[in-house]
C-alpha cells in the first residue's frame, strides 16, 4: 500500500523534476556551455609533439569516457572530432598528427561522458608554441682526417610539422675548442628526413673539440643544449703519413740491406771479392826479398853469332837454266812450315881431315857475286857456341873444332824486317845471340845444294833422313840442344877459297849421317875458295 501511495505521490509531482532534469540535460547537450570551469586543459607541445591533457576540477563528477573535438580560429569551421580520442578513458590525447599549423590557434573541446550522458564540457584555446624549448636532437660525431662530421638525428613522428617547423626551429651546432665557442648554423632546406649531416672543417690539429646540438628557442634565455660530445682532432693524414713514412723507411732499409747482401754474395761467388788466400807456393810473396829483389828469369843459353852482312844484288832469273851455280849458290830463305824462317847456309864446309880428298872439294861456295863483297870469315870465338839460328843478314860460320873449318853464309831473310841498309851501317857485320834451342838445323836434300840450314831439334818434321856418312870425308856439323859447337877445323887447315873454285861447280857430296840423337850431320865437300 505504501508503495502505491508513494507511486501516486510520485506520479505527477515527481514527473516534473524528471522532465526538468531531462530538459536540462538536453539543453546542455545541444548547446554546450563553453566554459573551462569544469576542467583544466593543458597543452604540452614538446619536440613537435602535441599532447592535450585535461583535469577535472570537480572530482565528484567523474566521467567514464571522453571525446575530443577541435576547431581553428582562422576559419569558420565546425568542430571536428579527433578520431583517436573518441570515447577514451584516458585524460589526454596525442594531437601531433592533428594539429600541424603552428600559426593558427586551436580551440579544443573535451566532453566527458558517463554512459551516454555528458557530464562536463571543457574548451580552450591554444597556439602551438612550445611551452619548453625543444629537446635537443640526438647526434653522433665522427672524426676524419681533416674534418669532423656531425650526424643529427631527428626523432619526430610527425612529418608534416617537421618539414615546416624544422625550418623555423633551426638546429645549431656549437663547437667548443678550449675556451672558444663557435656556433654553426646548418642549412636545413626542403623536405627533411629524420637526420642530416653537418661537416665541421678548418680545425686546429691536436685539439679537443666538443660538440653540442640544440634547437634555437624563441626565447634566447631558454636554450636546451645537448650534452657535449668530444673528440680529439688528430689529423690522421699526418700520423698516417708518419706511420707510412716509418714503414716505408723500414722497407727501404730492408731492401737496401738485401740488395747489398746479395751483391756481396754474388761478387764473392764470382770471385771478385774475398779471393782465396791459399795461393800456390809459387805465388807466395811473403818473402820480402822476393818482392824487393825480383828474381830474374833464368837466362837462356845462347851462343854468340857474328853475322856478316853481305849486300848482294837481287838476282833476276833470266830464264836461263845454264847458270846452275847461281841456283846452287842461292839459298833463298824460305819459310819452314811451322812458322820458322829458314835461312840457307851457303858454302861448303871444309873437311879437317887431310885424308879427305875433298879438301879441295870442300870449300865454301861463295854465294855472292863477284861484285859483291868478299865474304868475311870471322875468327871463331872460343867461348862462342855454335850459332845455329837463322838471323838476319848473311853470316858465315867457321868451325874450328872437329875436323873442318866451316864457313857459311847466311842469306838475309828477305822477309826480315831489317833493312839491308842497316846492316850496311854496321859495316856488314851483325852479331846476335842465337838460342840454339830455338833454331833448327837441317840439311838440304839436294846434293848440289851446299847450303846448310839450321833447324832446331824441336821440329822433327824438318828432319831429313841422313845416309851414312863417311867420316873421313864429311865434315860434321853438329847441333845439340845443350850447346852447339861447330866443329872447327884446325887453324892450320886452310879451306880453299871459293874464288878459285868454279862457281858453277859443285863438288859437294853430302851424304847425310844420322847421329842417332837428333843431330843432323851433313857431309859437305868443300871447295876451295879464296
Amino acid at each position, binding site marked *: 500500500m505504501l508503495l502505491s501511495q508513494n507511486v501516486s505521490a510520485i506520479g505527477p509531482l515527481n514527473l516534473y523534476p524528471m522532465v526538468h532534469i531531462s530538459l536540462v540535460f538536453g539543453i546542455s547537450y545541444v548547446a554546450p556551455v563553453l566554459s573551462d570551469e569544469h576542467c583544466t586543459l593543458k597543452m604540452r607541445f614538446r619536440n613537435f609533439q602535441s599532447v592535450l591533457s585535461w583535469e577535472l576540477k570537480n572530482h565528484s563528477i567523474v566521467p567514464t569516457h571522453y571525446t575530443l573535438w577541435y576547431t581553428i580560429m582562422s576559419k569558420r569551421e565546425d568542430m571536428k572530432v579527433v578520431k583517436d580520442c573518441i570515447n577514451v578513458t584516458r585524460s589526454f590525447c596525442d594531437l601531433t598528427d592533428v594539429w600541424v599549423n603552428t600559426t593558427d590557434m586551436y580551440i579544443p573541446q573535451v566532453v566527458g561522458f558517463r554512459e551516454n550522458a555528458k557530464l562536463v564540457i571543457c574548451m580552450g584555446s591554444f*597556439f602551438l608554441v612550445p611551452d619548453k624549448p625543444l629537446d635537443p636532437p640526438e647526434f653522433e660525431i665522427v672524426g676524419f682526417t681533416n674534418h669532423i662530421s656531425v650526424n643529427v638525428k631527428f626523432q619526430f613522428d610527425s612529418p608534416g610539422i617537421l618539414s615546416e617547423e624544422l625550418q623555423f626551429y633551426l638546429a645549431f651546432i656549437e663547437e667548443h675548442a678550449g675556451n672558444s665557442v663557435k656556433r654553426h648554423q646548418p642549412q636545413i*632546406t626542403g623536405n627533411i628526413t629524420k637526420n642530416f649531416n653537418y661537416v665541421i672543417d678548418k680545425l686546429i690539429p691536436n685539439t679537443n673539440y666538443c660538440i653540442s646540438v640544440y634547437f634555437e628557442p624563441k626565447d634566447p634565455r631558454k636554450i636546451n643544449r645537448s650534452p657535449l660530445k668530444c673528440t680529439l682532432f688528430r689529423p690522421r693524414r699526418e700520423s698516417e703519413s708518419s706511420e707510412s713514412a716509418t714503414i716505408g723507411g723500414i722497407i727501404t732499409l730492408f731492401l737496401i740491406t738485401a740488395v747489398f747482401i746479395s751483391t756481396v754474395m754474388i761478387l764473392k761467388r764470382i770471385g771478385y771479392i774475398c779471393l782465396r788466400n791459399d795461393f800456390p807456393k809459387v805465388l807466395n810473396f811473403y818473402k820480402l826479398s822476393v818482392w824487393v829483389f825480383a828474381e830474374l828469369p833464368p837466362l837462356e843459353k845462347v851462343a854468340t853469332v857474328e853475322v856478316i852482312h853481305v849486300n848482294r844484288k837481287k838476282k833476276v832469273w833470266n830464264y836461263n837454266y845454264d847458270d846452275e851455280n847461281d841456283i846452287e849458290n842461292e839459298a833463298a830463305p824460305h819459310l819452314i812450315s811451322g812458322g820458322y824462317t829458314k835461312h840457307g847456309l851457303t858454302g861448303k864446309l871444309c873437311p879437317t881431315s887431310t885424308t879427305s880428298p875433298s879438301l879441295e872439294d870442300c870449300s865454301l861456295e861463295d854465294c855472292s857475286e863477284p861484285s859483291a863483297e868478299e865474304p868475311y870469315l870471322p875468327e871463331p870465338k872460343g867461348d862462342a857456341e855454335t850459332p845455329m839460328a837463322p838471323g838476319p843478314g848473311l853470316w858465315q860460320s867457321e868451325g874450328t873444332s872437329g875436323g873442318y873449318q866451316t864457313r857459311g853464309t847466311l842469306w838475309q831473310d828477305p822477309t826480315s824486317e831489317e833493312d839491308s841498309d842497316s846492316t850496311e851501317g854496321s859495316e856488314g857485320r851483325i852479331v846476335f845471340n842465337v838460342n840454339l834451342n830455338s833454331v833448327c838445323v837441317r840439311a838440304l836434300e839436294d846434293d848440289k845444294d851446299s847450303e846448310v840450314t839450321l833447324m832446331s831439334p824441336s821440329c822433327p818434321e824438318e828432319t831429313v833422313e841422313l845416309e851414312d856418312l863417311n867420316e873421313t870425308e864429311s865434315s860434321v856439323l853438329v847441333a845439340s840442344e845443350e850447346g852447339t859447337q861447330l866443329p872447327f877445323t884446325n887453324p892450320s887447315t886452310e879451306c880453299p877459297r871459293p874464288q878459285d873454285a868454279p862457281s858453277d861447280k859443285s863438288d859437294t857430296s853430302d851424304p847425310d849421317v844420322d847421329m842417332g840423337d837428333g843431330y843432323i850431320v851433313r857431309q859437305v865437300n868443300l871447295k876451295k875458295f879464296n
Partner: protein
Amino acid sequence: MITKPDGIRKYVWLACLMGLFITGILSLDCNSLNVRLRRVTWQNLQLLSTMSNSFPIECLQERKAFELPQEILSYTQPLQKNIKEAFYEMSKQAFHIFTQDTFQSTWEEKHLRQVQIGLDHQLQYLEQCLEEEEEENEDTREREELLSAGEETLRKPSGAPVLQLGNLDLRRYFNRIDRFLKDKKHSHCAWEIVRVEIRRCFYFFQKLTALLRRR
C-alpha cells in the same frame, strides 16, 4: 683640483654621451636586422599571448577568416629588402590598430603599452634601414647610368612592383581587421578575435626571419 662630485658628473655625462652613440650605432646597425626583427617580433607575440588569460569560447561564433596573405614573399629577389618592407608595413598597420582608443579595458594595459612601444621602435628601425638601402640603390643606379650612358638599357624590374603587391596584400589584410572591429563596434569578442589574429600574423613573420638567416 677637481672635486669628487664634479668628476662624477663629468664621467656620467661622458657615459651618457657614449651610451647615446652606442645606442645610435646599434640602432642603426642594419646588419643585425634579422636578430632585431626576430627579437622584437617574438616579444610582441608573447605579449599578445599573455594579454588575455584565455580566449572566450563564447566569441568563437563571431570569428572571421581574415585571410592572412601567405605568399607575400613568393618572389625571392631581393628577399631581404622584401622582408624589410613587409615587416615595415606589418608593423605600421599593427601599430595603427593597437593605438586606437577603443581597445579593451580588460586587457593588461601595460602589456598593450609594451606592444605599442615595441612596434614603434621596430618602425623607426626599419625606416632608417630602408632609407639607407634606398640611398645605396640610388648611388648604384647612378653609377650604372653613367657606365651605360648613351646606350638604351632596359631597367631591370626591381622588387618594387613585386613588393607593392605584397604590401598591398598586407594592407588589405589589416584593412579587413580594421573593418571587422568597426563592424563589431569594437566589442570584446571582436577585440579578442583581432588579438588572436594579429598574434597569428606575428608568428608568421617570425618564421620569415628564419628565411633571412638561411639566406
